[in-house]
Each structure stands twice: as C-alpha cells, then as structure tokens.
C-alpha cells in the first residue's frame, strides 16, 4: 500500500445530523485500496457514525460517498458488498460454526458445492476446522472473533468495516487478538476500516489514522506523522502517553533573532517568522514539546540546547524508565521521561535541556500547528 494505491472509497463533504445535532460535519476522506485505516477519537466524536454511513446503515444528511468513482450514497448495505464486524459478533448462537460461515453464501445463492469449498478454505486459514461442527454458543471469545471474521471474509467483501471489535477482551488477550488482526490483514490484503478510541490500538494497527474530534477530521496521517507532526492542539494532546507538554509563549525579537519566550524559557526559532506573524493571535502562541524530548541536562548536550531550572514534583517509576513531573520556576508543571541514570528524589532541583529543533508551535485561536 503506497500513496499510489487506487482510491477504493471516497467521502465528499459528508455531514450527518440527528434531530438537528451535528454528528459528522463536512467530512472529506479517501480510503485507499489494501490499506488498514483506523478511525481514532474520543467516544461520541462521530467515528462510528462515519463507519455506519460507509456501510450504508445511515444515510448522510448531505454529501456523497463514492466506490471507485461510482456514486453509492443511496445504495443499500447489501448492494455495497462490504463486511461489518461490530463489538458483539452477532453470531447465530444456535447454529454450528459451519452454518454460521455458510449463511452469507446461502443468502447469496451460491451452489452448495461452492459453499462447501469456500467454507472449508476459510476454516483452514483461520484454524477453525476443529470447531466447524460446534455450536457458536459454546465457543470461547477468541474463537468467536475468528468465526466472526471468517464469516465476513468468506463472502469476499471489497471492504471490511470493524467497530471496536476487541473491546470485550481482557487486556492480555486483547493485545494478542490485535496482533492476529494485523497478521490477517497482511495475509488477505483486504482494505480495512477500523474504529477505536484506543490510541495504542490505532498506532499499532493503522497504516494511516484518521483522528476525529467533535464530528470533524483533525488529521489524517501515518502513525509517525500523527505522533511527531500533529496538525492541531487536539491531536498533540490526545496522542502520546504521557501527553505533549503545552506551554503558552510569546513571540519576540532580540538582535534580529526570533524567539518564543515564557516566564521560564527563551527558545530561538530560526526561520518561519513570516508564518508566525500571520497568525491570528500573534504574538501569543503555544509551544509543544514531547516529554521524551526533555532531558536531564548534562555536559554532553550541545551548547545550542535550551536549558532551564525546575524542581522534581512527582516521580512515576515505570521500571526501567521514570516519568517525572517537574515544576518550573513559574509553577508550570511539565512531564518528562528519564531513562535510568542517576537516582532522583522528589524536591530535587534539576536542570532540564532540550533541542530547540524539537519544539512545535501552535496558534492558540485556530489550534492549528504553524511550526
């Protein structure tokens, strides 16, 4: 899957209202053939509604949906030939696994020898042969998930839509099933759209991630782009744990050199002055820096690093690494990650260093990244 991959489904200015409340607003999106696309956002952000519109279970209030440039906005779900998998797998519990898998083929009127062949083939791949004649109600959760997936794959859909399918799993199993899903996607090369509120899941599974908030797309990008180049303040604070430090700063110039300053910091910013001066709330900006980019200052750090004093306020020992909450002189609390090294105590005064190249700047009004 590359940028040259053909577009399978395209959403154009799609809006969905429920009784006057806007659930999804002016959403533009491309789903590329063969990719694993994750919708990520807090609950109630509109990600499930978007998925249901792609599936044909909801009709957009405005906007259009295209399948390979054919308009499908009005098509009923069955005509789209997409597979869905929701949180509850909705298996027919009184039927055997075999009957569950054959069901979709029967209603599509496949000849019985064809049904037999297809069911056996998918059962082999997903290791369901031993349970083919077991009733669905007797299966454990992870087998149920495999049956649910097999039931979708057997009808050879051109697009798979999954809505938080791993929510019912306990933590250890959930990670295992996540790995399985990724493996299957690789194996079958199917296009998948996957809805989740769990950022780890999205970062692990997604070739690309669509971050949705309050019915709007905040950013579409690869996991690395979303993490290191967040387009908005929302993405910056939503992705990453501990989350990005955000510090209100002001733009100033000294001796023809541009800086952003706060009561604690003075950070040189080389170019980009023009972009910054154009921002709506100039000279007020928000500086973002990831906790892993704040370092305990030592002599090995180059001289262009920015340094500032702070006091350790809280230590979160997470085994090999510690997350430190540190209080700056002005009382701002920042989080940083410290990897081993010398032991540190609460109340200790430390000096923090960072490379000014690692900062991001946001416009506080539009909440968009400008640097």
């Amino acid at each position, binding site marked *: 899957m590359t940028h040259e991959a053909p577009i399978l489904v395209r959403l154009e200015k799609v809006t969905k209202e429920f009784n006057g409340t806007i659930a999804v607003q002016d959403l533009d999106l491309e789903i590329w053939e063969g990719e694993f696309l994750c919708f990520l956002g*807090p609950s109630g952000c509109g990600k499930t509604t978007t998925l249901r519109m792609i599936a044909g279970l909801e009709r957009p209030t405005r906007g259009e949906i295209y399948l390979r440039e054919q308009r499908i906005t009005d098509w009923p779900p069955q005509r789209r030939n997409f597979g869905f998998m929701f949180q509850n797998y909705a298996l027919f519990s009184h039927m055997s696994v075999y009957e569950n898998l054959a069901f979709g083929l029967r209603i599509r009127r496949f000849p019985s020898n064809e049904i037999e062949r297809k069911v056996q083939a998918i059962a082999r791949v997903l290791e369901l042969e031993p349970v083919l004649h077991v009733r669905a109600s007797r299966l454990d959760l992870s087998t149920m998930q495999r049956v649910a997936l097999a039931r979708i794959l057997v009808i050879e859909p051109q697009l798979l839509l999954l809505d938080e399918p791993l929510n019912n799993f306990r933590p250890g199993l959930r*990670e295992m099933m996540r*790995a399985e899903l990724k493996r299957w996607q690789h194996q079958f090369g199917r296009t998948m759209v996957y809805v989740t509120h769990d950022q780890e899941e999205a*970062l692990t599974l997604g070739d690309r991630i669509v971050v949705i908030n309050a019915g709007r797309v905040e950013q579409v990008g690869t996991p690395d782009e979303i993490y290191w180049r967040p387009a908005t303040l929302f993405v910056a604070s939503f992705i990453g744990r501990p989350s990005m430090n955000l510090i209100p700063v002001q733009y100033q110039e000294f001796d023809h050199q541009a800086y952003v300053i706060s009561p604690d910091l003075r950070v040189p910013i080389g170019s980009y002055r023009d972009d910054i001066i154009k921002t709506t709330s100039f000279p007020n900006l928000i500086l973002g820096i990831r906790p892993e980019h704040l370092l305990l200052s030592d002599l090995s750090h180059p001289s262009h690093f920015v340094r500032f004093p702070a006091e350790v306020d809280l230590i979160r020992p*997470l085994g090999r*690494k510690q997350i430190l*909450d540190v209080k700056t002189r002005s009382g701002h609390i920042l989080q940083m990650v410290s990897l081993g090294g010398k032991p540190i105590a609460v109340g200790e005064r430390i000096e923090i260093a960072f490379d000014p190249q690692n900062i991001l700047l946001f416009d506080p009004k539009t909440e968009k990244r400008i640097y």
Partner: protein
Amino acid sequence: MASVEVHELYKCYGRIPALQGLSFSVKDGEFFCLLGAPGAGKTTAFRVIAGLEKPDRGEVWIGGQRMNLIPPQQRDVAMVFEDVALYPHMTAFENIAHPLRLRRLPETEIRRRVEEITERLRIAHLLRRLPHTYSGGERRRVAIARAMVRQPRVLLLDQAFTDLDAKIRQEMAAELKRLQRETGQTMIYATHDFEEAVVMADRILVIREGREIQTDVPQMLYERPATTFVATFLGSPGMNLILCQAIPEVKGIRFVRSDFALAISMPQPPITEKREVLLGIRPERLEVSTDPIPEALSAEVEVIQPLGLERIVDLRLGHVVLKAIVPIQLSLRLHQRVWLRWPAEHLFIFDAVTEQRIYPT
C-alpha cells in the same frame, strides 16, 4: 493519623474465600497500595479495616489499638469508593461540611476546614454548585474532600479513579499523591492499575486470591518480582515468559524447547539439575539486531507498535511470541528477520510449577 496493621485476616462468603491469611502493616503517614485484579480481595480487606465486615479470623490494629470489637463509627476511618455517593441536593460546601456538622463543630471551624481542604483540592469554584454539574474528576475531588475534612486517622480509597478516562486518572493520581505528601495523611489505595499504583504508592502489596504475593517499593517489584504474576503484572508490556527445560552446564544453562534452544553463560548456574522453568526477560532488555549475529536465535517481526522514540515489536520465535522495546532508530519492517541477544544479567528464571523466582536469587 495512624498506622494500620492487619494480622492473618480470613474471610469467606459462603464457600468462597475472599481473604486467606492476609497480613500487612502500613506506617503512620504512609501511602500504601493494594494492587490486584478484580476479585483479589481488596474491597473485602477495606471493609474489614473499616469495620463494615467482621473477619472470620484475624485482627485489625489502628494506631496501636486493637479494632476488632470497635464499631465502624468509632474507628475514625474514612472511605472513598469507585461509585461516589454525594448528596445530590446539597452543594459541594454542604456535602463536604456534612461530616463536621454531624460532629457538631462550631460553624466558624467548619467554614475554615472546608475552605482549607477545597483550596488544596482546587475545587473552590464548586462550593456553591450541585453534584450533577460536576465532571467525573470533580466528583472524585469533592468525595475526597469530604472524606479528608474530618481528618480521619486512615483514609481508604477503593479504586477511586477506575472509571475515569486514562488521562484524567493519571492527573488525579498525581494530585492525590501531592495532597498526601502535604498532609501526611495515612492512605491505603486499592487498584488493579499498576501505573496508578506506582505514581502514588510508597509501597505496594500485590494481592491475589486474598493472599499477599509480595510487598515492596515499586522499583523492587519491577527488579525482583517474587513470582511470574508480579513479573507480568508490572511493566507495560509485562515480562516475556517462555516455558522450557533448563539444563545446567559447566559455565551456564541451556534452555531447551521443541522449537529452539538457547545457551546462556553464567559463572554460577542457579540450578543444579535439569528442570522445567519459565525463562523471563523484560521487553526492554531483549536486544534486537537487524544484522545477523553468529549463533544467535533469529525471529520474525510480526507486529510493530510505534511508541514515541521507541517501538514495541512482537517477534515470533517458533511457537513463542516475544515482545521487545526497540529504539526508533532501528528500522524494522513487518516480517523482517532479526537476531536476538539475551543479556544474562537481565534474565529471570521461575519455577514452572510454583511460579516462584529462582534467579536472580
């Protein structure tokens, strides 16, 4: 404030044992955590300490005084539960003042104390508002304020933040820790979330099936887990464990499975005869190389999870999937072959049956 000691607590509900000889002691002014899965006995232990439940056997001591025959209201223990019960028709001020009114404190004293605690918990803006207008985090703050305002000898918090979302939960944990440090309040916190426990706790007791598995400072639980349960419970992700035969050799141990074998040199092998063990290594200690290492085991990359400057990768080695944390500079592709180094100083060995740690001794 006071110390808390429990000795050999037993409690059954019908045939179901909830506590099976639980003992621990909490120092005056300490922040102590009970860490265990749901159903491990944490809530029962709290109910016994608070006097809401009679133990079948065992003793509870608070501040050096035996509590078994003391009714709950005289124990001076406050509790905050997961489902916070505030009086819906009372403002935050009235909710927090309530325990003081019951004690008939003078109005000026009530006002002073409520203001002090709400200041500390940063909820002064809620004082005149009714509970239905609070956010989840604010409800917890008001409940904690109400529990602390009467300065109980012990504060018990039972999964007080469990249902908050991850980010607010971490913030609340940090705040509670600060508050505890400033006030010196003895606190016992029950949770199943180790990240929450390590932020707050001076010491953590890992509880399972009503029994103590291990009690220590957070760092030691990580460095010297007593059992595989502790090893996998702490850490994100937890320790990798591989069931295999350990065969002692002159200068090391051979770990053998049907699908691979691994020789580790150790000057003094901790085992003397062949036995079934669980070989453990933390994901952050497994060294992954994209260049072949002679005689090293090789594995296939199955899943890659980006995590800031690091990645968590799943590596398949025969039938085993190992997790490793690797720096972002190591460029990896799915299904790539990599080679693994197992630093002997970071290995753990557990008995396969008892799951107790054998090495490091």
